[in-house]
């Protein structure tokens, strides 16, 4: 864990990027928290939306504002992301606001690897669809959608922050595998034209 305890955190792949028919890039470190408990509890909602400054997302949605996001992970789980600079402050605030033992939070900033796919909207959706058994058409996966699934062999979550961009998180331990998968799917010459 030496790369996690130094003065500045190091991402799993050091910001690796691949220029294919879409650009695959590892995103800079963000603060990332898992919040677990009754999503209708006021303390839960306030903790998430207060820190992120966005509205509470509905089922299968992510509420976003740049690096700030609250995403609906399951009926009793939220994912909260914030700029890394706010990490320490957010930990203190979550500790203070989620006092109820039935509402839990965990710091997963360094448990995850985070990638982005960017380029033409159809091509970005196609690269994601090559790897996950999910309908990524603009109608089924519009802007603001959040979907947990698998990327070949590993668990992953996808969201669409804006047209022409899909972001992916997976476990940090499989970051290299995930990056190679995404890069291979984005290899020039492998265009399918699924959502063209």
């Amino acid at each position, binding site marked *: 864990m030496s790369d996690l305890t130094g003065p500045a955190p190091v991402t799993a792949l050091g910001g690796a990027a691949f220029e294919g028919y879409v650009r695959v890039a590892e995103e800079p470190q963000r603060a990332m928290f898992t919040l677990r408990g009754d999503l209708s509890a006021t303390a839960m909602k306030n903790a998430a939306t207060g820190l992120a400054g966005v509205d509470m997302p509905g*089922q*299968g949605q992510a509420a976003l504002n740049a690096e700030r996001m609250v995403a609906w*992970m*399951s*009926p009793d*789980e939220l994912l909260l992301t914030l700029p890394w600079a706010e990490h320490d402050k957010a930990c203190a605030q979550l500790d203070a606001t989620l006092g109820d033992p039935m509402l839990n939070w965990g710091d997963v900033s360094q448990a995850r690897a985070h990638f982005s796919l960017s380029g033409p909207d159809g091509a970005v959706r196609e690269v994601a669809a090559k790897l996950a*058994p*999910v*309908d990524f058409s603009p109608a089924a996966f519009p802007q603001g959608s959040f*979907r*947990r*699934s*698998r990327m070949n062999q590993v*668990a992953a979550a996808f969201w669409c922050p804006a047209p022409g961009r899909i972001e992916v998180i997976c476990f940090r331990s499989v970051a290299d595998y995930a990056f190679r998968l995404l890069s291979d799917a984005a290899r020039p010459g492998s265009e399918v034209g699924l959502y063209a």
Partner: protein
Amino acid sequence: MLLLDCPCCGQRGEETEFHCGGEAHITREGPSSDDAAFEHYMFERVNPRGVHFERWRHVAGCGKWFHAARDTVTLEVWGTYPAQTSRPPEELLEKIRAARPGFKWRDIA
């Protein structure tokens, strides 16, 4: 391939995103049960050709357990319903009765 609608997270996924947890609606016999009841709970499973009720887990998604009713021959999925029940919902049974008149699965018909 099965297409299942997870009743917990509302997502439609294909089979490989889920994991089958075996037969549904099994009564778990405790230490106070007699040997016959415990044996029935522990070992006896149906393996029908046709309508079947199973437990599934959305393993690559929300991680929750739920129930599914499907046909083991045609792979039609009649529907999915929450795990917190000991019997399939009546409207789902109506749908199955309409498609498979006279079906019987354990004590459900």
